[in-house]
């Protein structure tokens, strides 16, 4: 691939210089009928290239896209995305056709005359009102879904988990038996109390600090995010979930996992993607085979190792989750020893 690349560069530079030397003897500067005719045809050619590329990408790159939403709340996101995507896809294909086809069709010629056509209130009304009506639908559905996702007020049953960020790692704190997180602030950071939890707060005692997220399938998770240094963003793309972590304040997001990690690994889109990735890894000589895992990535520029700030998320059945959480030591036993 790299050799190909150098060839490309060589060709590009060659063409540039060849053309630049021609400038010395070419002096005509305003397009004539011959130019119009040629350029109009090139416009058609370009349109063919554009269509081929757009369609090729839509089909061939389908496999790299994220699989269906792994959270219940994200289903409507996928839905809304599909509606929007079809809509803009149709407009895109139509408009590009008009632009380049007209460029070809109406390429200039000294025997032709342009139509004097300065205004049409009817046409303008059509293309003001049509987008407006379509937008009502998109905005309506979008806002409904936005409220759906962002409203965490009446979730009494939700599991509360704090996701804590710093350059360049993630930690998490489960709220424990009482489902209440103890107060946290950077001033309490000391020794192994890396998340700055106030241990004099009674809610803190049963909190559990971990380095990987385990989530039970089918339970609403209420995340609270903190950062101790700069902005980070907790991005969980498979769940259609993201929220910035802001030093000095607590931000929130919630979702309900729909598939366990095991179930997700069986899902056909994921199987295809995994196979594709492993094929590529094998070709590159990577030893380890890739297996699907949910991930939390940092998605707000945060410093040198921003590109490697991740945490694994495992979704399991409720029983397995109960077993796992019971094994985690509480903060009072870890810190107050």
């Amino acid at each position, binding site marked *: 691939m790299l050799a190909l690349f150098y060839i490309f560069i060589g060709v590009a530079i060659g063409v540039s210089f060849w053309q630049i030397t021609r400038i010395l003897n070419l002096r005509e500067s305003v397009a004539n009928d011959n130019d119009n005719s040629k350029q109009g045809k090139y416009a058609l050619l370009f349109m063919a290239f554009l269509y081929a590329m757009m369609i090729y990408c839509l089909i061939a790159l389908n496999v790299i896209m994220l699989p269906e939403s792994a959270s219940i709340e994200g289903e409507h996101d996928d839905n809304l995305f599909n509606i929007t995507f079809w809509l803009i896809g149709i407009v895109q294909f139509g408009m590009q056709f008009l632009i380049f086809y007209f460029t070809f069709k109406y390429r200039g010629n000294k025997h032709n005359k342009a139509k004097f056509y300065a205004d049409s209130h009817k046409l303008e009304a059509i293309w003001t009102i049509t987008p407006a009506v379509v937008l009502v639908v998109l905005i309506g559905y*979008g806002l409904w879904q936005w409220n759906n996702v962002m409203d965490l007020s009446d979730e009494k049953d939700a599991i509360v988990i704090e996701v804590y960020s710093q350059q360049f790692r993630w930690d998490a704190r489960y709220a424990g038996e009482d489902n209440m997180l103890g107060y946290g602030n950077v001033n309490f950071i000391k020794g192994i109390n890396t998340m700055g939890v106030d241990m004099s707060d009674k809610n803190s005692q049963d909190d559990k600090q971990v380095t990987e997220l385990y989530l039970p399938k089918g339970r609403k998770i209420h995340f609270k995010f903190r950062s101790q240094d700069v902005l980070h963003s907790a991005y969980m793309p498979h769940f259609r979930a993201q929220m910035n972590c802001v030093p000095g304040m607590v931000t929130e997001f919630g979702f309900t996992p729909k598939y366990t990690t095991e179930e997700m690994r069986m899902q056909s889109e994921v199987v295809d993607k995994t196979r594709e990735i492993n094929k590529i890894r094998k070709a590159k000589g990577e030893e380890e085979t890739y297996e699907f895992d949910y991930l939390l990535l940092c*998605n707000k520029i945060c410093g040198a190792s921003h590109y490697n700030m991740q945490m694994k998320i495992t979704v399991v059945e409720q029983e397995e989750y109960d077993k796992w959480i019971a094994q985690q030591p509480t903060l009072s036993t870890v810190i107050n020893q």
Partner: protein
Amino acid sequence: MSEHHHKETFVTKYIFSQDHKMISKQFLVTGIFMGVIALFMSMLFRLQLAWPDKSFTIIEAFLGPHQTDGIMNPDIYLALVTIHGTIMVFFVLTAGLSGTFSNLLIPLQLGARDMASGFLNMVSYWLFFLSSIIMVISLFVEAGPASAGWTIYPPLSALPQAIPGSGTGMTLWLVSMAIFIASSLIGALNYIVTVLNLRTKGMKMTRMPLTIWAFFVTAMIGVVSFPVLLSAALLLIFDRSFGTSFYLSDIFISGEVLHYQGGSPVLFEHLFWFLGHPEVYIVLLPALGITSEIISTNARKPIFGYRAMVMSIIAIAFLSTIVWGHHMFISGMNPFLGSVFTFTTLLIAIPSAVKAFNYVTTLWKGNLQLNPAMLFSIGLVSTFVTGGLTGLVLGDSALDINIHDTYFVVAHFHLVMGVSAIFGMYAGIYHWFPKMYGRLMNKTLGYWHFWITIVCAYGVFWPMHFIGLAGLPRRYYTNTNFPMFDDIADINVVITIFAIVGGIAQIIFLANFFISIYRGEKSSQNPWNSNTLEWTTPVEHIHGNWPGKLPEVHRWPYDYSKRINPNDDESDYLHGKDFVLQTTPLLEGEEPS
């Protein structure tokens, strides 16, 4: 005007010139110079993204201490994307585009002898020059230039402990931008005053070319929003250097708790995007104005829906100042605000759609003269549509959650404001080059330049959407630490090849530009058979633009191919040719269009 007889020395003519035509050329050449730097940076970081583990001599040569064996360090990667963004958005597409064409065209197309204040105009350029110099100097700071992204969100931008570029590099960035903003404001005020006061006799607002409308409204957006960025930058300077806590609170870094209490980075985001979003339109509207003018001239047709075009420029400008929150849906601000911003954001689709449809209708049944300027304008319409449509995805808060800050965003804004605005700028350069230098640019090179550039632009940014939909965050030095992204490595290579070829192809433009200044074909007075006033001035520049009296305007600027019988396309041209200068009086019984 008394001063147009005064004696000019080399210094007053070429350096501290107060003539808007010279200042416009100064803006253009400085903008091109900065553009070359920023373009080169993008080629360097594209190399890194395509082949993260390969060593390159070019990286070794240019990045000095910031690379190891020809592989760039993560810090300098972030610095490169930061400075690339800053220079492109502000120095090239704001000063280079608006500064060049507002200066050149506002007096010439309105029939004024110069800007309202030639002196302030000169100050505006030299402040811009100074800020460019400081920005370039910041590249050579030992710890590297600013690296917190072009949005410079604190605390990252405020704390040198967090990233080395937030030391001296960031200080210089802020100083440079503060001076830049002063330059923009002075320029914008000058444009507004000139448009309002110095229109020649008969040049009613409703007879102004769409270029002028675009520059005028752009200047107003600038005056409204740039001061807010200035205050944001000043408060950041206070936080960095004087210990205040506007944006910072509860920070533990490098093993210690810092003293900051009570500030919020979200405040900075609000202030930044209050400029940052209108800035998109500060960049784009002049390009759209230029395109309107060029498409109409080269289609030999009136621009379709002049009034609708003016209304949509104003509507876009108004809406652009109340949508900034769509950059902050997941910043932690109240979700209710997210709803409001979704609503206002998606409304922008309406005037944008009107503009796109009007361009296409202008092409319909035209007699298209496919000059390079025309091709770039058509290219702009194409990329504006492609990039604009994905705005419907990003502007919808519910969908933004999952693609925020991914490569989908990078693809979107590069097409809709980056490529589109650059195309508008190229179109303007090819079209008004004869007005600037009295010569024409070579068309063959122009064609090569256009086709290579548009193929590469789509080749870079169309596949990029899909990388974003795969969930890849932007500003990652490499994605090799995530096996889940292994399947996009090849796509990154393809994108890089298109980027490098497209970047190198700009040499064609540079050569054409600089050689044509001296060797291009001599221009006639009105090479494109255009209607507007700038083509009634002599080819050789004179102080005061018109030798005798100022021209008088009798009609709108778009009387192309006007017929004897308006309803019969076969009838003869009313004025015997397919264009009618704005200075031509109405014939007896002629209806004004």
